């Protein structure tokens, strides 16, 4: 297995009301290229912190230690560059974007051997759009010796709330086209054509109408399809989905999971699927990492995690799952009619 990224001794601390919250503690693991990898745990276990750290999107106020090492074979970045920019599909409330690199002197954020083609990697200076005035001026020297993959181009990110990641005053077509324009250096008409093709790929019922629609005109599931289209518009190596289906009903959730599975397979993307739902993660992922209180408690192949968990906490999570065949609590409680 070729690693896409190696995480070593990752620590993330937030500062809140004067006290420090250790959100991730000494986390180490590798993610293989093209695998479907799930991060699960209960709320507050550090899943989103980990996803944001990997994407270089942690808030500037966080303290980071350890390293995230990337091995992107086709990525060539001739110069050191600024911290990763704001993804076009980042929630506006995440305006305070810092980066792992900028916050951590100990982070080694190097890419592997420079590939020989920079096809999807235009120079950073060409970035435009909503990254303007954003992170580009921020502490560029902090990572003078290392490189990071670029959010939006090398990493696509899908959040739980699609409304938060879409711009309410831009049409769906413009938002997706902008990602292609920014990161692939396509002309506007090419970008717009790509946006339409992407809307077809994410199976929106009427792609032509959707191109011209504003986010508020779409249902929750449709918005999440648009957010996915924007996330994959630049052909990222890694797709991160953080609770991307958690706000959707079961039927739409299953459709979106099937869509993610298909897109990841077709494009050979690596998937980082973040979820509180171990059953959902098990249906999609090849490997599962279980987090609790900021620590990685168990990591293994899905079949092993589900059938023969080694850690008591993993077993407790599995036991707590209420499946359709779950022992009715009703009988346990002895309720009678």
């Amino acid at each position, binding site marked *: 297995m070729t690693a896409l990224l190696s995480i070593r001794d990752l620590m993330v601390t937030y500062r809140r009301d004067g006290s420090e919250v250790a959100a991730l503690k000494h986390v180490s693991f590798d993610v293989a290229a093209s695998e479907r990898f799930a991060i699960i745990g*209960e*709320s507050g276990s550090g899943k989103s912190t980990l996803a944001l750290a990997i994407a270089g999107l942690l808030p500037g106020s966080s303290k980071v230690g350890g390293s995230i090492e990337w091995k992107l074979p086709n990525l060539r970045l001739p110069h050191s560059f600024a911290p990763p920019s704001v993804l076009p599909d980042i929630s506006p409330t995440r305006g305070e974007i810092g980066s792992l690199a900028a916050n951590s002197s100990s982070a080694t954020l190097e890419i592997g051997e420079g590939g020989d083609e920079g096809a999807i990697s235009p120079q950073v200076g060409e970035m435009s759009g909503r990254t303007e005035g954003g992170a580009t001026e921020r502490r560029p020297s902090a990572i003078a010796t290392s490189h990071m993959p670029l959010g939006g181009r090398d990493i696509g990110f899908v959040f739980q709330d699609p409304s938060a990641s879409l711009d309410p005053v831009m049409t769906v077509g413009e938002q997706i086209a902008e990602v292609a324009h920014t990161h692939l250096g396509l002309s506007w008409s090419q970008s717009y054509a790509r946006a339409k093709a992407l809307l077809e790929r994410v199976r929106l019922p009427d792609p032509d109408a959707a191109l011209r629609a504003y986010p508020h005109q779409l*249902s*929750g599931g449709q918005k999440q399809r648009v957010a996915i289209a924007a996330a994959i518009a630049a052909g990222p190596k890694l797709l991160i989905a953080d609770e991307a289906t958690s706000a*959707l*009903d*079961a*039927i*739409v*959730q*299953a459709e979106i999971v*099937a869509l993610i*599975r*298909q897109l990841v*397979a077709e494009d050979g993307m690596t998937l980082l699927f973040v979820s*509180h*739902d*171990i*059953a*959902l993660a*098990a*249906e*999609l*992922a*090849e*490997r*599962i990492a279980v987090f609790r209180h900021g620590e990685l408690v168990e990591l293994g*192949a*899905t*079949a092993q995690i*589900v*059938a023969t968990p080694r850690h008591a906490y993993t077993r*407790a*999570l*599995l036991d*707590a*799952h*209420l*499946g*359709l*065949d*779950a*022992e*009715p*609590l*009703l009988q346990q*409680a*002895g*309720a*009678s*009619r």
Partner: protein
Amino acid sequence: MSRPLLAVSGLTKRYRRGDKTIAAVDDVSFDIRPGETLALAGPSGSGKSTIARLVLRLIEPDAGRIEFEGGDFLALNGAALRARRARLQMVFQDPLAAFNPRATVARVLDDPLRIHDVASRRERPRGIAALLERVGLSADLAGRAIHEISGGQRQRIAIARAIATKPSLIVLDEAVSALDVSVRRQILQLLLDLQREERIAFLFISHDLGVISAIAHRIVILDAGRVAESGDARAVIGAPQSAIGKALVAAAPKLNRTSTQGTADRQ
């Protein structure tokens, strides 16, 4: 068989959308017996929350009848409605959201005791302590602000608030959906204990069939405002007949703890 506690028939609620009218709830009938849990399931937008609001008389129907505790619930108003409302409580997904986050737990629990005259001013602190104990919380929590307590504790307090007036029916709309699995199980267990001890009936709204099969006696599955099918919860979930029932069952994530889940590339 006992008489229904709640009997809903022909319930209809329409909303205007642009120049069209949609029936959010369309000729829905069901009943709930004392001490029974009836689940309402269906995809989002199928009318579950609208039915909850109609039953609670937070909104009025365009057609249909609601009988509660043997009387015409829709005919009540003023003092009679207020009195009957004590018997019909609710718990929502984030039920304390409407409160000032700095409000204390005691303040949140004092309201129903005061409004419905359940306890005199002098007795109320004791009433609050007893309620906290009923829902498995320490009486020390009374002085804490609601923003300081965990999601599971908040939901217990919402349940304590709901049972304060000794209701015969509690409407729960996605009440456990936002909770972590382990906490969710504890809350379901608490609901079942309360049901057994006090014979409270639940109208339990959830999009999660796993939760429903664990705690509901019967189920009504809705599709676009109409009843698609109904019956014994485990029988319906085990062998759904309607298209929407089949789709909901197929969509529920399944944990196969004996096999090779995740290795196969199913689509």
